[in-house]
């Protein structure tokens, strides 16, 4: 094929090459323009349908700047350093790690049942486990918080359970994917010794995914902490409650102080999580 230049020169019947060229030939060009048109129609229709005031959008930038400087600045830092608020921060941390732990405890069996290669039963257990992880993940953590608050009343129990549900969905999916990626050799070897499925999990699967699971666990905790900062907004304990109270009372300087504290805390959590994950990866 690479010698086509030479063959071209030697063959006298040189094909008349077209001097015209278009990037998209006839049917594709039509589909392409139709696609672009459809996208634009959907876009403009959405803007009309949602009643989005475009003039407000384009003048927003000045307004947001003014809003921040007039009403949210300077943040009332004293408010977030008082012991009551710090106690709620501590509550938030506790909720996040308890929810993370309970969630992980349930996500590990779900990950096992929901991995196509290791599930005990492909026709029944596998889809069920997948459905459970998918639905816990799809329902937003705030909806879980509201549901648990409605059933169990205000308090941190609702928050812990909401975060548990959130972590089940989040970690369960990642765990299942991790198990699906293992090397099946050791599994066969342990199975060949006549071991039970549980022993296969413990001796052949778990050693392979231990490091990845730890990494996912740390990451899940990090994400759960971010979610924990707002479940309190709906009465499920932690610093979210302070946020709601101040939003309702239009105490904007306190709101901005709380937001600053959330960003700082999340940054710290992210730093710890990145450091821990790096250490776990090194220990591999």
């Amino acid at each position, binding site marked *: 094929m690479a010698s086509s230049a030479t063959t071209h020169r030697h063959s006298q019947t040189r094909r008349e090459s077209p001097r015209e060229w278009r990037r998209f030939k006839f049917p594709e060009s039509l589909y392409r323009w139709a696609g672009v048109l459809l996208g634009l129609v959907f876009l403009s229709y959405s803007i009309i349908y*949602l009643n989005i005031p475009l003039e407000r959008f384009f003048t927003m930038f000045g307004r947001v700047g003014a809003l921040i400087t007039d009403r949210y600045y300077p943040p009332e830092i004293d408010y977030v350093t008082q012991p009551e608020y710090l106690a709620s921060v501590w509550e938030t941390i506790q909720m996040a790690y*308890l929810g993370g732990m309970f969630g992980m405890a349930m996500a590990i069996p779900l990950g096992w049942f929901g991995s196509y290669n290791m599930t005990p039963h492909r026709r029944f257990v596998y889809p069920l486990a997948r459905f459970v992880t*998918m639905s816990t993940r799809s329902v937003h953590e705030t909806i879980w918080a509201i549901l648990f608050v409605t059933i169990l009343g205000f308090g941190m129990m609702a928050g812990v359970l909401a975060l548990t549900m959130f972590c089940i969905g989040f970690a369960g999916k990642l765990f299942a994917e991790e198990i699906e990626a293992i090397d099946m050799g050791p599994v066969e070897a342990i199975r060949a010794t006549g071991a039970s499925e549980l022993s296969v999990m413990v001796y052949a699967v778990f050693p392979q995914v231990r490091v990845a699971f730890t990494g996912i666990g740390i990451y899940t905790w990090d994400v759960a902490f971010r979610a924990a900062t707002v479940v309190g907004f709906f009465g499920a304990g932690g610093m979210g409650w302070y946020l709601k109270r101040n939003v309702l009372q239009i105490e904007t300087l306190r709101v901005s102080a709380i937001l600053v504290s*959330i960003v700082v805390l*999340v940054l710290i959590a*992210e730093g710890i999580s990145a450091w821990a994950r790096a250490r776990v990866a090194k220990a591999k």
Partner: protein
Amino acid sequence: MTTAEATAREADRIIAARSRTKLMHSAIYLVVLAFVLWSVKTTIVDDTDWARLGSLADVLESISEFVGIDWGLVPNLWEPAIETIMVATLGTLLGVIVCVPAIWFGALNITPYAPITYPLARLMMTLSRSIHEIVWALFFVAAVGLGALAGVLAIAVRSVGFIAKMSAEAIEDLDPKPVEAIRAVGGSDFQVFIYAILPQVLPAMISVIIFEWEINIRRSSVLGLVGAGGLGLVFFRQLNTFNHPGVSTVILAILVLILFGEFVSYYVRKAII
């Protein structure tokens, strides 16, 4: 000292060391367990209004109220469901536009002036990811008023972090050879970006954007809780009127919407890769 004695002593030493580390580990586990139990006590046992909760039967009864589907509500769900999808889509698109400077500044190999622009981009990404969408929505409701626009803006800002981070990483990993070639034909920085960088990272970027869109459907389904329209508003209304089967219906609708999103994203990603 004979060799046998030495070996025996060595074995003793190893066994002793092992039991020491074992002891250490058990101590750590014990401390952790105590800490967990204490946390459980303070968060769950002390902070729960057990009188309000009542007996287990009462709890089961209040759960059973949620069982069932309010079929009468279903026709009213179409509009908010479409709204939710639209808010997610517009938000993702706007997020992609806002992303452009963040990606440009945030990829070490193309950032214009690394000591200033790179940390700036990282700050943008971190702010976007660390603040929860509910909080962003509250902020934008304050800025532009109730309605879908606040939701779109919240989703857009919340999306920037992830899309920009993944795209910047893709750009940092790209093959530098085409870049050199476009430079050598006399291309400007912009042309280098369009011809040598974008074609390489576009598939990865589109895949990330679609993944984010999927997540944004989930997010936009709750933004109604703070006044940004969509299914979240219906959810709130059902809850406030104690129509508990209606609440379950809305949750099911959200599930269906997300399944739809996963379906679309699966096929689009398959088509482009």
